[in-house]
Each structure stands twice: as structure tokens, then as C-alpha cells.
């Protein structure tokens, strides 16, 4: 990424600020904003799939918004870990299920929050909607386009809420960037977006079997590894495009108010060929939008230097959204006058809006680093808004931030990206 020296200096300053900035949007920032309970009281929910991402959703389920009555998972270890989360907040224990249909039959639920492996999304979400439950389904929407359409049709037929879990849509930083930068046209005309999600690891999860004789084959997983590493097998997963790109493409669709008309892509399994892995470990895609606008995406599992970001390059400015936490804005062409403007978003923590003192140098932040905020990283905070937003949609009809239509558009683009790799040619929507 080419930057003028002034831009580099500014970007570096902001980068240092990001490193030094409050590590946690989580607890306090979110608590200030979420002032449940909503009208009608907490929504009675059941969880399907409480693996790692299901537990992120559970952790970010505010008891003022949702009352977790039951949890369902085919892996007993996941249920046990979910119990610990519920116990920590002194909420009543949730009843356990292995089969989601049994949970629907036996429990008086209004809504289901689900994060099973991708291939199961359509069956479970459609089944829940048909049973009259509202559904918050983890992204990507579904494994193939017909499955997405099936889910959307089920939501329309049942009249129930179906939201897909793209937490960026609920992240106040993205909403502020959209409202304050993109929508007022501060970037000018944006022809190019660069999406990157680079890591240097094999994406393989390690876990012990719940019991030595545990056998998940009746659920379609021949070995325990197929279950815990479902992301690495085509039967269950759509690989990096589904798990990473779809988040970012969903943002581009939102900011562009458009969907890709065509996608070209390359990729392959280049580095981690052992261990039975099937999905690509390197992918590169070009998403073409109407009006000559193009988003490129790369995800590599051999170098993490670029980390992950969405960068919008406009005729008047550049907006870089990094790590779901850090928003940088650079004026285009103004660097020699040092007039580049930065926009930072920082969570309100209950502390001061500003530290006043004798004059500080230009690179000093507005407030001292707050070191006493505990809690996990930013990401759950947006997820907290996501779960709350879902409950508000159910209770008071608050519009969804994503919704099935938008989720289907980004899913289609990412499914087509995989198709384009296989086909070695562009796929048109």
C-alpha cells in the first residue's frame, strides 16, 4: 500500500494509538448503550450449536434481552462449556438437547440463535422458522444459493424474523463510518475497495473427544475431526470465502448499496496439504460492481503482516477500517499540506471525554489509555448489539441491520467466488 511520507506518519500515529487504545469496547461501552429490558420482557431463546462461535453469541446475549431456556449441541463438551457461561452470570441453567427438533418440541421458545456448521444452516433455520420461531443464524447464510433462498422463503412464509449474524452491521464504528464518511460523500467516487484477511496459521482446531467412544458419524461426521474442523471440508464448509470474505463483501454491498455483478477468483490448497484438509488456504477474488467499482479480496494463510481490513479508495479520500475497531480516514491529495484528517472512534467508557492539561504535542491522544477496563476484545461488543438488535426486531419491530436479502447477496457472491476458482473463469450473478 503506497502512502506519502506524511500519510505514513499519520497512519503510524493512528496505528500506535490503536495499539495503545482501550482494548475493550466490550463490557462498559455496551452496557451504556443497551438499556433493556425491551417491551414484553426478555425473548425466550434456545441455542443450536454452542461451539466456539455459538458461545461468542451466548456470551453476548444480554439477559435483559433474552432468556436462554435451552441449548442444543451434538458435542457434550460444547454444552458443558456453554453451561459455564450461563452459570457465570448467575442465570438459571439451560436445559440440554442433542437434537434441535426435540428442543423445539419440548421447549416453549420464541426464538432460536444458531451457529452450527454451515451445511446445517438451511435445514435448521428453515425448520425453526416453519415451527414459528424467530431465527438469528450465524453467517454465512447457507452452503449454497438454493439453501439461502429456502431460508428466505421460510422467513417470508412464517412472518418471523430471520437475521444473519454479520456483526459489522451492528458495529457502531461501521455505522458511524457509513453515516459520517461514506453517505455524506467524503470519499468522493470510490472505484476500488481492497479487502484483506491474512493469517499465518493452519486454521485447524484442536479438541479432545468428549468420551473415548464418542462417534458423531450419525450426524454426518465420519470422524471427530470432521466435526471440530468442519471448516476444512467442502461438504460442510465454503472455506475462506464463506468464513472471512462474506463479512467484508457484506460491508462493501452495504457501503456501495449494490451487489457484485460478476466475480473472478483463483486459489488453491498450497501450504497445508496434509491432515485431510480440502478447502483452499489461499484465495484471491475480484468482485465487480456496477459503475466500474471493483472490490478485491485476498485471504492467505502464510503471512499475517496485512492482518485484516477493508480499505475504500475514493477520489477524495481513503477510509480504512481495520480489525473491526479502528477507522482511519485520509484526505486524498492533501498530504503535502499536512491537512490530513483522521477520524477515530473510541468507546464511551464512563470516563472523561477529554483530558485537559497544559498543551500536549500533536501526537498525544485525547485521553489517557484506560487500563482498568476488563473484558474481552472488541468483537463481542458488536455481537452484543447484534443479539440485542435481533431481540428488538422481535419485540418492537426494530429494522434488522442485515436481514436475509442482504445476507443472501453476500453469500451468493462468496459461493460464486468458490465456483470461479473451480471453473477458472468469471461467474456472473
Amino acid at each position, binding site marked *: 500500500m503506497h502512502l506519502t511520507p506524511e500519510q505514513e506518519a499519520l497512519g503510524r500515529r493512528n496505528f500506535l494509538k490503536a495499539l495503545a487504545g482501550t482494548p475493550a469496547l466490550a463490557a462498559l461501552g455496551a452496557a451504556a448503550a443497551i438499556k433493556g429490558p425491551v417491551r414484553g420482557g426478555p425473548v425466550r431463546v434456545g441455542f443450536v450449536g454452542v461451539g466456539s462461535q455459538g458461545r461468542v453469541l451466548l456470551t453476548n446475549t444480554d439477559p435483559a434481552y433474552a432468556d436462554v431456556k435451552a441449548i442444543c449441541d451434538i458435542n457434550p463438551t460444547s454444552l458443558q462449556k456453554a453451561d459455564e457461561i450461563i452459570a457465570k452470570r448467575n442465570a438459571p441453567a439451560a436445559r440440554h438437547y442433542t437434537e434441535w427438533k426435540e428442543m423445539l418440541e419440548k421447549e416453549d421458545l420464541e426464538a432460536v440463535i444458531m451457529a452450527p456448521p454451515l451445511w446445517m444452516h438451511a435445514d435448521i433455520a428453515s425448520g425453526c422458522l416453519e415451527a414459528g420461531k424467530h431465527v438469528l443464524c450465524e453467517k454465512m447464510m447457507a452452503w449454497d444459493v438454493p439453501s439461502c433462498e429456502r431460508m428466505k422463503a421460510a422467513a417470508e412464509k412464517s412472518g418471523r424474523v430471520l437475521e444473519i449474524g454479520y456483526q459489522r452491521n451492528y458495529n457502531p464504528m461501521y455505522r458511524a463510518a457509513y453515516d459520517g464518511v461514506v453517505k455524506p460523500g467524503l470519499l468522493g467516487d470510490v472505484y476500488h475497495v481492497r479487502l484483506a484477511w491474512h493469517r499465518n496459521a493452519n486454521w485447524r482446531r484442536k479438541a479432545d473427544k468428549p468420551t473415548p467412544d464418542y462417534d458423531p458419524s450419525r450426524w454426518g461426521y465420519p470422524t471427530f475431526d470432521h466435526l471440530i474442523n468442519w471448516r476444512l471440508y467442502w461438504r460442510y464448509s465454503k472455506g475462506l470465502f464463506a468464513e472471512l470474505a462474506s463479512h467484508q463483501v457484506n460491508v462493501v454491498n452495504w457501503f456501495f448499496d449494490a451487489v457484485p455483478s460478476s466475480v473472478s477468483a483463483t486459489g488453491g490448497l498450497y501450504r497445508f496439504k496434509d491432515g485431510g484438509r480440502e478447502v483452499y488456504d489461499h484465495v484471491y477474488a475480484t468482485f465487480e460492481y456496477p459503475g466500474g467499482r471493483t472490490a478485491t479480496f485476498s485471504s492467505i494463510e502464510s503471512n499475517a503482516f496485512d492482518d485484516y481490513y477493508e480499505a475504500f479508495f475514493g477520489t477524495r479520500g481513503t477510509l480504512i477500517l481495520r480489525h473491526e475497531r479502528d477507522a482511519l480516514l485520509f484526505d486524498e491529495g492533501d498530504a503535502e499540506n499536512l491537512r490530513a*484528517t483522521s477520524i477515530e472512534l473510541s468507546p464511551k467508557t464512563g470516563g472523561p471525554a477529554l483530558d485537559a492539561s497544559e498543551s500536549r504535542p500533536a501526537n498525544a491522544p485525547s485521553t489517557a489509555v484506560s487500563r482498568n477496563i476488563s473484558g474481552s476484545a472488541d468483537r463481542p461488543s458488536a455481537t452484543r448489539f447484534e443479539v440485542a438488535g435481533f431481540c428488538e426486531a422481535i419485540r418492537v419491530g426494530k429494522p434488522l441491520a442485515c436481514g436475509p436479502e442482504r445476507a443472501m447477496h453476500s453469500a451468493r457472491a462468496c459461493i460464486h467466488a468458490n465456483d470461479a476458482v473451480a471453473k477458472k473463469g468469471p461467474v456472473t450473478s
Partner: protein
Amino acid sequence: MARSLSRRQLFTLDFDVRTPTSTHWVRVHRTAMACRFEVTLSSGHARQVPAARRALDEADRIEATLTVFRDTSELTRVNRNAARAAVPVDQELFELLRSCRALSEATGGAFDITSTPLSRCWGFLRREGRLPAAGEIDAARSMVGAELVMLDEATQSVSFGREGVELNLGSIGKGYALGRMAQVLSDDGVTDALISAGGSSVFALGDCAGDGWTIDVKSRQVASGPLARLKLRGLRGPAKAGHHVRGVALATSGAGEQFVEIDGVRYGHVIDPRTGWPARGVLSVSVIADDPAVADALSTAFLVGGAALAEAYCARHPETLILLTPDDGSARPCMIGSHRGVEIETYAPDA
């Protein structure tokens, strides 16, 4: 009871109909006057970012006019020529110089925009504090004083009483810029924002949606915590004459990190223009007033003039609150005067 909405409403993505979230601060900032100029908005007001940028453009414009660090500025032109001939200036600079003269009078000369020769002879302009040689201070003092700056109303021009006089608006420029920025924001319909420069000059517009703008006043010399926590509420009600924008201003001056030590006594880098010697005895001064330029000037004046000057000023100027922390190791500010736009939340904490 759940309100029923059509699916279309539920599934329509229209961010305009949503309640704005105010969970974050949006800080729009840019470097000007060698510090960070910043407009802080609540994230619910993110749409006002373009207005914030226009306000920052105003700070750039003012810097270009008032700086002594650029050959092209209007002030540089005055400094270069006003000892030889009256220099006509634009109305903005003329009015600012007139305000400076009034502030100089109101503070008995403790605020003085001509003190540069003194800072130079003490080495502080080059950041190398030193004890001047005999006679140097007197020589510098002869070039310092508000009476050496003549303002001619008829021709709107400035002339100096002698060679060597130099104007420097460093102790009022940031506050002045904040006042102008506030006007730009106000013209754009922004009524709730916190604008600041370098942390030393702050102007609160509105009251942060009723919460008040929480500000911690800190000193670099006090590590134990803030000297005070304030809540600023930009004043509502009719605008006062001469104040186009309603807000409450806070300015802070301190002895700083630059010191010179003479005979075991520590002197800060701010010179008392009345004596020609560095100010001492005050660790930090914060002034709360209606006008950010006034607050800025006064914080410097009271750093050199101390509590006695602050008390004398407040006796004649209501709606001024001063937090003055003596350099006695106590880290406890004393409070002089009052201002209705500020609440002191915590004050004189145990050090």
C-alpha cells in the same frame, strides 16, 4: 406488547429510521498549531463529521494568519514592518489584537503578547533554558509591553514603539481558533460537540445530550490522578452580546516540562512579562469562562500572576472560575470565582 410491522419494514435496511447510537466518541482531528485540534462528537451525531472537517479547515486558516513560524502569515508581516511604519491589517487580526490589549490591561500586564524577547533571552525559544547574563533581562524587557503596540482604529493598522518588538499569539491563538471553529460548527447546525486543541484549550458546545461533557484536568507533574473532574455544560439561553456561540471554555496552563534550575529553585518556561523572570509557585491553572480566547489568555496570566491576580480578576469579572494548583506538592487545586457552566465532580482528591 409487540408492535406488529410488515415484513417489508422488518427487512428493509434503512439506517435513517434507526435511533442513532451514542456508544462511541467520534474524534475528528488534525494537526494545527503544532498540536492536535479535535472535534469530538457522540457517535449518534456521526453525520456531522463533514461539519467537523469544515471547522478544522477554519483552524488551518487561522494558523496560516496568526503563526509566527511562516514567512507568509499576516502576523509575520506585522512583526517585520510595524517598527518602521504602521501596517494595515485585516479586521480579524485587528480585533484580536484589540482583545489582547484589553486582556493585558485586565491582568495588569501578566498576559502579554510581546514577551518573546524574554523567552529568547532565557533560552526557552530554543528549548535550552539558561540563566541570562547580566543586563540581558533588562535589555529584553525594554522591548516588552502592551504599550509598545499601537493600534490605530481609523486606519486599522498596527505599529510598534521601537525596534525589536515581536508579537506572538501563542498564548491566545488556540482559544481564539476554537471560538471561530465553534462559529463554523454552529452555522452548520452542530450544537453538541467538544472542540479542543492540545488538551490545553477546550470549548464545550451543548451538554453532551444532557450528560455534560466530562473532562479530567491533569498535570504532567502529578502522577497520582486528575487534579479535578469537571462536567461542562455549554450555556443555553440567549446569546450574550459579542458571543455568537454559546458554550463554556476551559483553558489550562502549566509550568510544563521545560525548567531551568537556579540556586536550587526550579523555574518553568513561562516568563512573567512584568518582572522578566520565569513564573514560579504555580503548578497548573485552569480557567473556565465563556470565551475560549479569554480563557486561554487568562490561564497564562494566572500562571505568572498566581492566586492574588486570579482573585483580583474574579472580583471584577463574574462567570469566571479558576482552579489553581500551587507548586507545593499538595496536588490540590484551590478554587476561585464561579461559572454556571461547570460542575466540579471530584475536586482536590487525596494525593
